[in-house]
């Protein structure tokens, strides 16, 4: 048969089971779009390439599968960069396929030419430039394998226009690479040693993160924790991997972690760090993190071991395999003394909730919303105070129910990620908590949402500020507020209606709670703008660089 490079790309994507692709066409990827014309793949025309890549992230984060987005050369490719870097830091498997000027023009400053390959080296897991259409038979399946292999991450494939148009004659499609069955064989002596440490420990804690999510190991974590009565703290990326309903759940640690969580960590004599990377937002001053504890680090990426904190013992490998090896060897233990100390610390340093009558307190709004939607609903956030409040109080019970930009902290993530999640999960409710700063960073995707009429509820906690910046200026810069208060505040409800999406401005409603309930119960997209106090802070807070036991605010004695 005879096909051009573009047709081969689309056919190979179909073979990989891709159903949705977000993107924007342009001069150098038009052949790919022409091939898409004949395909069963559903294309989502986003309004900015960054939105397209975050839609792909929303698809991937909510399902664990590889998702794809398209962009043209030059500005199309540069617009992708933030979302690619975001996927790299949170280990999200997406594949970006970019158009490039024809091979003979590369390096000549041709129209819409940029060195996409060079620009994406530091922010992809791997990138490719395709030099002939024949290479696609290898590169496309290889990109899918790589994106999800070991520690997942983004892959970019740059395809010059002439390669898309190059005709290839071939007799049959190359064999699909057989699903590589990863040998999850972990050295049993390592497993033995770790199990002995757990059995010997007096005050163990499980510290779990995104690696548990990517390793689909939350069930095994639950079994291990229950069998040996090990309390569990999670990072931002780990939220949902251990249900907040479990008595052993100690919530999120770190800069905005719960007071008792950070204090109990200080008491641990054994830290089981599973699928985490000792990020500074989680550990605070890493030298002073868990000083009493022996640390066992399990991660699929060997480069994470001893990167920031020298540990006493480590296993490089698949978390699920490690946990399954450990489970029969770990003894049942009720750990009465340790659990009693944990409970006492929880009682002495609880998370301080606002009074219930303070209905426009962001924490109360987030808790109310959580009660109005099903447990399996998917929550996306943007970045800032609303994100931290959501992480602190939203009751996450299942993996992949929180999609948030953890590592890169990208404002503008929430709305397109919600669109991607809703596309792949048509049976679920999707909630996007955002702020008045963040929503404007990808507000154009309201048009995409209107096109698709997806079941996404956008909740803006509107404090007329870059709230987390304002908070840092208040606490650490002597109250010298600069560039954190917006001079004008757009009418978000009017903007939303302008895009064709129903909206409510709670500052104009009399019965706030009833309006919120009604808005969330509506089918299809809705935007809800909620005014909140301008000077509300996220507490507790650990000053950047300080140990996590040194927390500001949120103390019972502050009241």
């Amino acid at each position, binding site marked *: 048969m005879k096909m051009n490079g573009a047709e081969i790309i689309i056919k190979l994507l179909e073979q990989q089971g891709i159903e949705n692709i977000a993107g924007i066409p342009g001069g150098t990827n038009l052949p790919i779009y022409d091939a898409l014309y004949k395909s069963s793949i559903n294309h989502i025309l986003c309004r900015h390439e960054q939105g397209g890549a975050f839609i792909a992230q929303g698809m991937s984060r909510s399902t664990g599968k590889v998702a794809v987005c398209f962009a043209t050369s030059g500005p199309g490719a540069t617009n992708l960069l933030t979302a690619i870097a975001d996927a790299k830091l949170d280990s999200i498997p997406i594949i970006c396929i970019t158009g490039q000027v024809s091979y003979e023009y590369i390096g000549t400053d041709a129209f819409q030419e940029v060195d996409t*390959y*060079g620009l994406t*080296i*530091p922010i992809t*897991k*791997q*990138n490719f*430039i395709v030099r002939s259409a024949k290479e696609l038979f290898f590169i496309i399946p290889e990109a899918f394998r*790589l994106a999800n292999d070991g520690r997942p991450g983004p892959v970019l494939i740059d395809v010059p226009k002439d390669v898309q148009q190059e005709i290839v004659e071939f007799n049959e499609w190359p064999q699909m690479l057989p699903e590589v069955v990863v040998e999850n064989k972990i050295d049993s002596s390592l497993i033995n040693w770790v199990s002995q440490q757990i059995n010997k420990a007096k005050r163990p804690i499980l510290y779990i993160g995104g690696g548990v999510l990517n390793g689909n190991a939350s069930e095994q974590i639950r079994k291990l924790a229950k069998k040996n009565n090990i309390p569990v703290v999670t990072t931002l990326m780990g939220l949902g991997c251990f249900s907040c309903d479990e008595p052993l759940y100690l919530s999120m640690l770190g800069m905005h972690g719960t007071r008792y969580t950070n204090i109990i960590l200080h008491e641990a004599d054994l830290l089981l760090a599973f699928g985490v990377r000792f990020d500074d937002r989680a550990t605070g001053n890493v030298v002073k993190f868990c000083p009493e504890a022996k640390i066992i680090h399990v991660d699929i*990426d*060997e*480069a994470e*071991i*001893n*990167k920031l904190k020298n540990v006493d013992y480590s296993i490089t490998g698949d978390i699920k395999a490690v946990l399954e090896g450990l489970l029969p060897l770990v003894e049942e233990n009720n750990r009465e003394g340790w659990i009693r100390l944990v409970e006492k610390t929880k009682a002495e340093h609880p998370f301080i909730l606002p009074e219930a009558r303070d209905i426009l307190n962001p924490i109360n709004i987030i808790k109310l919303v959580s009660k109005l939607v099903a447990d399996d609903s998917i929550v996306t956030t943007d970045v800032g105070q609303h994100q931290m409040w959501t992480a602190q109080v939203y009751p996450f019970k299942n993996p992949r129910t929180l999609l948030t930009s953890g590592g890169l902290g990208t404002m503008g993530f929430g709305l397109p990620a919600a669109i991607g999640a809703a596309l792949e999960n048509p049976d679920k409710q999707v909630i996007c908590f955002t702020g008045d700063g963040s929503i404007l960073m990808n507000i154009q995707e309201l048009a995409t949402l209107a096109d698709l009429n997806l079941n996404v509820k956008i909740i803006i906690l509107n404090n007329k500020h870059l709230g987390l910046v304002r908070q840092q200026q208040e606490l650490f810069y002597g109250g010298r507020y600069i560039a954190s208060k917006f001079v004008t505040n757009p009418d978000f409800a009017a903007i939303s209606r302008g895009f064709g999406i129903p909206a409510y401005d709670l500052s104009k409603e009399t019965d706030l709670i009833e309006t919120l309930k009604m808005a969330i119960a509506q089918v299809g997209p809705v935007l809800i703008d909620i005014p909140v106090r301008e000077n509300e802070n996220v507490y507790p807070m650990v000053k950047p660089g300080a140990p996590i036991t040194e927390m500001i605010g949120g103390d019972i004695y502050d009241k």
Partner: protein
Amino acid sequence: MTNSKYFVIELLVNNHAGVMSHINGLFARRAFNLEGILCGKIGDGSTSKMYLLVDNDDFLVQIVKQLNKLYDILEVVVHQDFDITVFNNFETLLKIKVE
């Protein structure tokens, strides 16, 4: 001869245009210092050998782990036993040409 101040990292890599960028980028963005590079194709030209001269410091273990993660790097070997004069006499390269 055994060196204590430096190590040589020997790499077997796929020989195509982007490989050098990936390796340079790794050193630059993680602030690892690179004291010298020797590089050339081997065999049929599909692979190359690279010899990187690096400081003997605490970062070495992390550098090697990061190099091992790069897709186009096929093999990483660390040497302490090598002749450092090769890195100190680059000017002889052009002198030979003139003669």
